[in-house]
């Protein structure tokens, strides 16, 4: 029953896991910087920028991620005339979606900083750059971290969608192994069970850490 889990299939699952982690890692890095930048822009109290950001967020939110993946993967190659690999398409979609979601989190955590914090900073003679660098952003980051961790696990979970546009990541590799061992009745049980556990092992520490931070800082 367990002979499926030989060295060969385990190394292949490892390669699939690597692609999964590559997609998540690159999009998470882009999301962190993009989201922070956009979030600060959005909280600048400029109603035009706010409206544009809000529209972008709602526009992306209203569609399932899978639809965005389809649009970028199938559409971009036709409209813009270059072929995107499925991994590149996933990274683009996850980065844009993640940045916009992160933007909203950054905005809400910046807005949750009480007004007197700004005023006290001004009273101490700090200019606005110093106020942000020493007073506002350190406090906002504390409120942001648990929230963004939840987004992070959602992004890692969403990498499974890359399978649906043909990326050879963890799920696809698992399926190939199951097809190879199709005479073994327990193959789907073992392989899907293993992938299930792998995702859990990746995501659970992150959400556990987020919960602890929330308790500690909340």
């Amino acid at each position: 029953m367990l002979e499926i889990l030989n060295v060969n299939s385990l190394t292949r699952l490892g390669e699939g896991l690597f692609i999964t982690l590559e997609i998540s890692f690159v999009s998470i890095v882009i999301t962190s910087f993009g989201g922070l930048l956009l979030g600060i822009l959005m909280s600048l109290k400029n109603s035009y920028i706010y409206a544009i950001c809000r529209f972008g967020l709602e526009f992306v939110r209203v569609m399932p991620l899978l639809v965005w993946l389809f649009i970028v993967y199938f559409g971009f190659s036709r409209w813009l005339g270059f072929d995107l690999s499925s991994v590149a398409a996933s990274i683009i979609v996850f980065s844009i979606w993640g940045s916009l979601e992160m933007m909203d989190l950054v905005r809400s955590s910046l807005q949750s900083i009480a007004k007197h914090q700004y005023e006290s900073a001004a009273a101490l003679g700090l200019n606005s750059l110093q106020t942000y660098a020493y007073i506002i952003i350190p406090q906002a980051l504390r409120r942001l971290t648990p929230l963004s961790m939840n987004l992070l696990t959602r992004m890692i979970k969403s990498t499974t969608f890359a399978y649906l546009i043909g990326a050879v990541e963890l799920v696809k590799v698992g399926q190939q192994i199951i097809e190879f061992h199709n005479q073994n009745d327990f193959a789907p049980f073992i392989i899907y069970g293993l992938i299930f556990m792998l995702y859990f092992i990746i995501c659970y520490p992150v959400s556990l850490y987020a919960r602890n931070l929330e308790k500690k800082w909340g």
Partner: protein
Amino acid sequence: MDFHFILTHIPAFVEAAWLTLKLSFWGVIFSLLIGFFCVLMHFFKLKFMGNLCQIYIEFSRNTPLLIQLFFLYYALPKLGLHLENIFPLNLLCLSVDESLRPAFACAIVGLSFLGGAYMAEALRAGFESVKKQQFEAGLSLGFTAFGNLRYVILPQALAVAMSGISANIIFLIKETSVVSIIALPDLVTLMKSLNSLTYKTDELLFMLFMGYLCIILPLSLMLSWLEKRLRYA
């Protein structure tokens, strides 16, 4: 854009959207039930069941729906477990074609499994926002634990939890796009199969987009209206 093509394929898309709606409806109903169950276990301080619910919540929140569906659809039947024959699901499955019943049952179970945990979290946030004095005040007025829940706690908790619940409803509808992997003819499946037949990618992507927009946008507006009503109730 080939508008003739779009017009001739609208009925097929409506049918696919109908399946998405059916799935989301049952998914939302069951996940609300599961969510309430988990929260009530904590409310009535049933330690063992509460811990069990917590394990379930962690499991379903930290694994992707796609893998859950694969597991339900491909792995469980190998162990002799056919979801479409189990009691409430076999009745729900009557609404779809016989060949689709196993996948339909799996999709409902998968969505409820995922959604239940998210609903439980939203409801828990609502319960936690109710002040401790309210629990005590209800009991001191002579309410039983259940009456206290029904008349004092729940109305307040729901008003707070509503924003989370409506976000989860939208989230679940969007997650249904994954069911194409277990061969359910939803909007994504239809788009993919028509695309491989006709290569009208632009038109099909447009219809896919419009299909989800027609489902999600009205619902999202309705839910935010409801949320406002509840907040001032």
